[in-house]
C-alpha cells in the first residue's frame, strides 16, 4: 500500500518548531465600539485556503495593525475589508464582514459606495499619471462630492493639508503626481484616499518602499489621522506597529493567532508564536 498523505500530515505544516497554531484566536477579538466586524471569514484562492476562520472587530477611531510573517494572510484579510479581492477571479470569500451592521458581501451592497467608505493606500505608491490636483480631485469628482469648482479646490487643499503635503506642492498642483519623490507620492496617495472622506483607511505596508525619513512623516500622519479615521495597517516593521497602533493582530499561516492591545501584545504575548515573531526568532 502506498502511503496516502493524510490530513494530519497537512496539519503538520501549521506548526513551526513544534508549536501549533491555536484553533481559537487568543485575546479580545471584540471591542466595545466596532466600526467593522468580521466573523468566521474564510478566503480561498482556488483550492488553496488563504484565510482560515478569522473573526475580528475593528474599533472606531483606532489604529489596528496586522503583523505576521510573509504569506500569513494579513494582506488578503485587509483586502477583504473593502472587497479589493473581487478583482481576483479565483478568489472566494465566505463568512461575514460588517460595516455599521451591514454585511459588505451582501449582494445588495454597491461595492463602489463601500470603497468610498473604506479607502485604501497601497504598498507601492501608485499615483495616477495625472496632475497632483487631478490625483486628489478624481475621487470627489466620480462620487460627486463637490458641488462647485470652489468646493473641489477646497477639498483638494484640505486633503493635501491633512496629508502634510500642501506646503510642498501648492505651487505645482498642475505638475504630474508621478514626478514627486517616493515619500511624497505615498502621502499624495493618502491624501487621495482621504479626499473622499472615508470612514476607514486600509494601508497595505505603506512604508515598505520608503526611506526612514519619509516613513517617519507617514507615521506622523497616521498619528494625526487616527482622531477622525479608523485605520487598519499591515506592516512588517514591529517597531512601527508598536509606535502607531492601538491594537495589534498577529497572523500566522492564514489564522489569526492573537489580538490585543498593542502594549500587551508586545510586552506580554499570549502565544509562543507571537512571542517568537516579535522577538525576531523567525519571520
Amino acid at each position, binding site marked *: 500500500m502506498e502511503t496516502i498523505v493524510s490530513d494530519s500530515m497537512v496539519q503538520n505544516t501549521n506548526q513551526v518548531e513544534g508549536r501549533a497554531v491555536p484553533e481559537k484566536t487568543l485575546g479580545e477579538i471584540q471591542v466595545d465600539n466596532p466600526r467593522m466586524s468580521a466573523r468566521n471569514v474564510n478566503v480561498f484562492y482556488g483550492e488553496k485556503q488563504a484565510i482560515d476562520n478569522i473573526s475580528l472587530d475593528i474599533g472606531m477611531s483606532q489604529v489596528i495593525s496586522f503583523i505576521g510573517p510573509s504569506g500569513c494572510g494579513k494582506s488578503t484579510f485587509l483586502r477583504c475589508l473593502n472587497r*479589493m479581492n473581487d478583482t481576483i477571479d479565483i478568489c472566494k470569500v465566505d463568512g461575514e464582514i460588517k460595516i455599521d451592521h451591514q454585511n459588505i458581501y451582501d449582494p445588495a451592497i454597491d461595492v*463602489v459606495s463601500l470603497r*468610498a467608505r473604506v479607502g485604501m493606500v497601497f504598498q507601492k505608491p*501608485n*499615483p*495616477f*499619471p495625472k496632475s497632483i490636483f487631478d490625483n486628489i480631485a478624481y475621487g470627489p469628482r466620480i462620487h460627486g462630492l463637490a458641488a462647485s469648482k470652489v468646493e473641489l479646490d477646497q477639498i483638494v487643499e484640505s486633503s493635501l493639508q491633512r496629508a502634510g503635503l500642501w506646503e510642498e506642492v501648492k505651487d505645482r498642483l498642475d505638475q504630474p503626481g508621478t514626478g514627486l519623490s517616493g515619500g511624497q507620492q505615498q502621502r499624495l496617495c493618502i491624501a487621495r484616499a482621504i479626499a*473622499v472622506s472615508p470612514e476607514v483607511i486600509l494601508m497595505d505596508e505603506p512604508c515598505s518602499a520608503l526611506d526612514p525619513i519619509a516613513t517617519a512623516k507617514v507615521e506622523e500622519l497616521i498619528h494625526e489621522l487616527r482622531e477622525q479615521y479608523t485605520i487598519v495597517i499591515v506592516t512588517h516593521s514591529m517597531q512601527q506597529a508598536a509606535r502607531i497602533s492601538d491594537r495589534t493582530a498577529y497572523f500566522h499561516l492564514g489564522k489569526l493567532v492573537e489580538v490585543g492591545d498593542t502594549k500587551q501584545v508586545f510586552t506580554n504575548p499570549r502565544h509562543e508564536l507571537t512571542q517568537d515573531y516579535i522577538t525576531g526568532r523567525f519571520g
Partner: protein
Amino acid sequence: MTDRTYQRLDPQQAAERVKASINLRKRKETRFLWLGKTAVAIALGFLVLLFAGILSKGIPGLFQYYVTLDVRLDARQLDPSGQMTVESLAGGDFDGAILTSLYEALGNPEGRKEKREARRLISSGSSQRLMNYVLDNPEQLESMVSIQFAVDDDVDTFLRGLISRETPEADRRISDQLIGYIDALEAEGRISYEISDYLFFGSASRDAEMAGIRGALVGSILTLLVCIVIAFPLGVATAVYLEEMAPKNRLTEIIEININNLAAVPSVVFGIMGLAIFIVAFGMPRSIPLVGGIVLALMTLPTIIISSRAAIRAVPPSIRDAALGVGASKMQTIMHHVLPLAMPGMLTGTIIGMAQALGETAPLLMIGMVAFIVDVPGGVTDPGTVLPVQIFMWADFAERMFVQKTSAAIIVLLAFLISMNAAAILLRKKLERRW
C-alpha cells in the same frame, strides 16, 4: 567523483582562469556585435536598393512632355450656340482648332499622310483640356492663347530616349515623319518637360499620357475612412471586453483562439467572404469603397484587437488598484485610466492595421474594385478603385509610359503610408504619459 581530493585554487590561479574566461566572453560578445551589425547593414542595403529602384523609375514618372501650341479661340468654331455651357461647348470643334494651330506650328504640312502623322503627335485628351480652358477663361475668347498640351505617350517615350532613331522604321511605334515633326517642334522650343498634372489630377485612362491617380487616391482615402470607422471602435471594444470583463471560461478561450487564427487568414479569403456576404447576399453594389472598407475592416480587426489587448495588459495593475481603491467602478477605471494609458499602444496597432489595409489588393479584386472607372468617387457608395489596385492594373498595361506611371503611383502610395505612420508617431508622442 574524482580520485584526487579537491585542491582549492589559490587567488593567483583563480585570477588567471577568470582572465581566460573573460577573454572568451569578450570574443563571444564581439562576434555577436558583428552579427548584429551585418544583419542591420544587409537590411539597410536592401532598403536602399528598393528605394533607389523605385525613385529612379518613379521620379521620371512624375514628369511628362508637353507641347505648347498657340490656339486661336474662335467663338463661332468652339461655341456655335454661344451659351458657354458644357452642353453648348460639346458642339464646338475643339479638335479642329488644335489641329489648325498644330499644322501651323509644323509649317502647314500638305497631304493626308503627313497630316495623319502630325495628328499622332498630341494626346487625344487635348480637346478636353482646351474645352476646360475655355470654360475657366471665357474672357479669352476671340484671342490667341498659348496652351500646353500633353504629347502622345509614344512621342513621350521617344523624347525620353527609350525609342531609338536607329531602330528600323517598321519596328518602332513612331514614323520617321513624326520624328521629323518632333525635332522641328523641339527646335522651336515648343516641347517642355514638366511635372505631370495628369498624374495628380487625372483619373484612370487607357491613354498612358492622361492616366492619373486622383480617382484611386480618393478611393483609397474613402476606403480607409470606412475601414477605420468600423475597425477601431470594434477592435478596441472587443479588446477591452476580452481583457477586462470577459469571464475566463471555455467560450472566451475559443473566441481568443479564433481571433488569433483570423489574423493569419490570407486576405483574399476576406475578399471572397465580402463578395459572398455583402454583394451576393446583401445585394450591395460592386466596386464601392463602402464594401471595400468593410472587408478591410474585417481583415484589420484581429491586428487591432491583438495589439490593443497587449496595450491594455501593459497598463500596470497598480493603476487599476488605485482607481478601484478610491471607489471608481469597473467602467470608470477602464474609461478614465486604462484606456488613456493603453491608447498609444492601441493607436500603434491600428496604424499598422491601416497600413496593411492601404496596401491590400487581393480582397478588393474580389469585390470588383478592379473595374475601370474614370470618375473620381464622390462618396463611399460611388464606384471607385484604390491605389494598390490602380498600380496593379497599370503594371498590366503594355504601353511603355505606364511603367513610369506605375512607379510614380508607387511613390505616391509610399508617401501616403509614410505620412500615415508619421501622424501615428506624432499622435502617440502627444498621448504618451509616463507613470
